[in-house]
């Protein structure tokens, strides 16, 4: 039996496998499939201060080894989440990371304060990198100063551990990550989607109503892995790797590159139990080699 636990700052995760925001609902849709509490944790769909309907269809389309999405952060809002979803998650013993989104520093703070009033939120993940909303989102995430301002403000508003989710579209991602570290982030999540576009050559128009959408899936993996690799050399807080992880081998590559834990997103769509299978696979890899999960972190680095 190998030790699969990893620590992200003050928070200890059962194992290094979490599910990604927006790709796992609120974690309550999986009763038919497996016990979500066995995962390292789950990231909720991005929560905003007020409920959001989201963008008009079409919101998704497929691309080579990937997909584009422009959901537009449709979500029940932090209030309904705390009232209806969180208690159930708590009851099931799920490690909950609340992914939150806002278009102003004030709203980010307001959401964090609301969550701070609850028990059972293991960490807050700041989505300052959503590519599919007009305001806020990616504009925050591409700018070190703005990212730091959001982080600092939220940091003051809650004692819950803070993760900040990086945008791969920032010109200098390391600078953003360092700024967030300095501003009090406990970890950085890398990466969010990169904006892409698909055009229907018959209808001669963008496939998505929003025109552009975020690219996710295996196509994104090498880029995400490179960014994790780069950040691991630049920040001293833990890095949560994410991007195109579909198999245990993929997850292991991220750990070897320097990630302390990983998140599984798009893979949940083709297999609801993907994250569990990946967690099992990583455990096997460790068992056959007599390693603990934490032994893997960063050992592929020169």
């Amino acid at each position: 039996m190998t030790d699969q636990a990893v620590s992200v700052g003050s928070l200890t995760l059962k194992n290094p496998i979490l599910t990604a925001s927006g790709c796992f609902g609120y974690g309550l849709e999986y009763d038919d499939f497996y016990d979500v509490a066995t995962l390292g944790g789950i990231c909720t769909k991005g929560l905003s201060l007020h409920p959001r309907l989201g963008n008009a269809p079409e919101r998704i389309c497929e691309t080579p080894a990937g997909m584009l999405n422009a959901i537009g952060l449709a979500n029940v809002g932090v209030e309904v989440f705390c009232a209806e979803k969180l208690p159930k998650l708590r009851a099931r013993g799920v490690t909950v990371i609340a992914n939150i989104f806002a278009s102003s520093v004030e709203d980010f703070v307001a959401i964090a304060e609301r969550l701070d009033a609850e028990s059972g939120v293991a960490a807050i993940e700041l989505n300052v990198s959503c590519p599919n909303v007009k305001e806020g989102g990616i504009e925050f995430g591409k700018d070190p100063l703005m990212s730091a301002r959001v982080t600092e403000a939220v940091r003051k508003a809650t004692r819950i551990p803070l993760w900040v989710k990086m945008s791969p579209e920032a010109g200098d991602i390391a600078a953003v990550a360092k700024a967030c570290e300095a501003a009090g982030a406990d970890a950085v999540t890398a990466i969010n989607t990169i904006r892409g576009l698909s055009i229907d050559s018959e209808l001669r128009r963008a496939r998505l109503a929003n025109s552009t959408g975020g690219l996710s899936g295996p196509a994104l993996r090498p880029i995400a892995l490179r960014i994790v690799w780069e950040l691991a050399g630049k920040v001293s807080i833990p890095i949560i790797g994410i991007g195109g992880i579909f198999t245990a081998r993929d997850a292991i590559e991220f750990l070897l590159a320097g990630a302390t834990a990983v998140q599984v997103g798009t893979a949940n769509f083709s297999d609801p139990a993907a994250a569990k299978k990946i967690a099992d696979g990583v455990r096997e890899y460790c068992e056959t080699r007599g390693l603990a999960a934490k032994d893997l972190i960063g050992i592929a680095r020169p």
Partner: protein
Amino acid sequence: MTVLSRRELITATLLQRESIGEQYHVLTFDVPKGIAAEPGQFTMLRGAEWGEAPLLPRPMSYLTAGTTPSVLIKVAGEGTIRMARSTPGEPFTLLGPLGNTWRPPAQGRRPVLVAGGVGIAPLLFFARRLHETGIRPLAIYGGRTTRDLPLDDELSEIADVTLATEDGSRGHHGRVTDVLAKMLSEDALVYTCGPDRMMAKIAELCAERDVPCEVSLETPMACGYGVCLGCPVPTTDAGYIYACTQGPCIDARRVAWGKGEHAPHKRPEPKRIAP
């Protein structure tokens, strides 16, 4: 609405592929323990050996359930092309049963099934279920040409069918909507699946005569079980329903037809280009 059975991802091998012309193929799978799917429900289907592209599973309505569940596929793009080329023994993953079922027929109402092309799948499954309960529905089944009427014989055995083709090569020369307009009676209960424009028109006809109408929605899906939020369909209350969990079967009156662009073929014509 019947109680839905547990959803599950199973890997099953293809038992046989029955091709009906080049466009339509019935894929039958080997599932010893069986799948308790109800008419109207669908599965997310993907070749287990497709690798990383095409990435997403494809939503397909169950044509039959049980130990040899089957689907009727129409070739559209890369995914269905692969399905059309698949050979017995090939492994597939089936996630299901997903979505809700056709509403049960109401007392005193004659079920009328209106199918367009591949839309026959969930309706033939439904007709068979009705047949078991001693109900023989009316059916209108149309397509562009004869070739677009797969499984019409199977339907005729258990329903009073009127066929229609746009090119007149078979049955009524015209659209299913013309046929329905003529024969729609107040005591009907309409179930329809097909191209969005067709379903919209049928919904309109039924609304005019105050006849209940149930449609099966078609929209791109990534997960099929409610977590990606990629399958919204605009509703008359200015909101959305998610086709995979709140659908695909839904009361036609709830759908804001024409709003949104939830089916590729539903979209407005491309802008004219100066030659």
